[in-house]
């Protein structure tokens, strides 16, 4: 019963974070929500008895992709600041 409740909550949180990541206006928030989605996804893989994929998802999906996206947002902001005064 507890496991079922946890799984349902996890599935709801996954869909919620995916929808929010796509609809939120601020890019920085979207990236944070994407990282949250990746970590929840890793949890879902672990619940599905696939620890190999859970490890890869946490390390590559959430960690490295998140860092890359955050870096991109930083660059976009730096570019925007440079362009605005001109």
């Amino acid at each position: 019963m507890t496991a079922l409740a946890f799984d349902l909550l996890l599935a709801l949180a996954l869909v919620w974070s995916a929808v929010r990541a796509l609809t939120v206006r601020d890019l920085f928030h979207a990236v944070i929500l994407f990282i949250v989605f990746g970590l929840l996804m890793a949890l879902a893989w672990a619940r599905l008895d696939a620890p190999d994929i859970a490890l890869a998802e946490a390390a590559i999906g959430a960690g490295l992709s998140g860092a890359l996206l955050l870096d991109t947002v930083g660059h976009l902001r730096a570019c925007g600041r440079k362009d605005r005064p001109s």
Partner: protein
Amino acid sequence: MILVLAVVIACAVFALSLGRAMLSLDPAPLRLAGQVTERLEESGVTHPVTAVLLNFRGYDTLLEIAVLLLALLGILAVSGNERSAPHGIAAAAQPLLQSLARIVVPLMVLVAIYLLWAGAHRPGGAFQAGAVLASAGILLYLAGLLPAWSAPGFRLRLGISAGFLVFVVIAMMPLLFGGALLQYPAGWASALIVAIEAGLSFSLSLILAGQFLWLPNEDEEAEE
């Protein structure tokens, strides 16, 4: 409004047809899991996922590392020689982050080696180990302890392609002795898989970290 409605209806129809297709599939036409378990002893490792990735379907893994290598080459080609000037250390160097990185990075290296070693008999493996190593490199860069990479030198190029080259050499070796591509000689599978995995994690960590450390760092950022 009509457009949004049309998109929603299209998505719903697509999801419904996907669900219908899934329900109408034959239940397990192939018993792949059984086949893997039967031949597991011959694979040289005892973890079924590693056996599939590096022995039974080694071809897929070979192409995977080739794709990652190509992706990095693409990044290098697009970014060109514009930022050949050496970049300094990341500006936002904070003492707390630095001391944390000094403690965490050795642990991350230890975890990566464990993941690599554990891959033979439990969840783990080259890709996870490489990702952890790459994250350690990125953490060092963000803490200001490691400078960004400017132009790839010969040693770095060699390191990036080493995993793929080792894999290709080991894959081609049986062809010389009348075997098939990627057919490990009997009794050698275990050692060869460990060699491939070690090369893969080393190169993967450089490739994944390189996608981050080779991104153009403009001077504006240094002022932040």
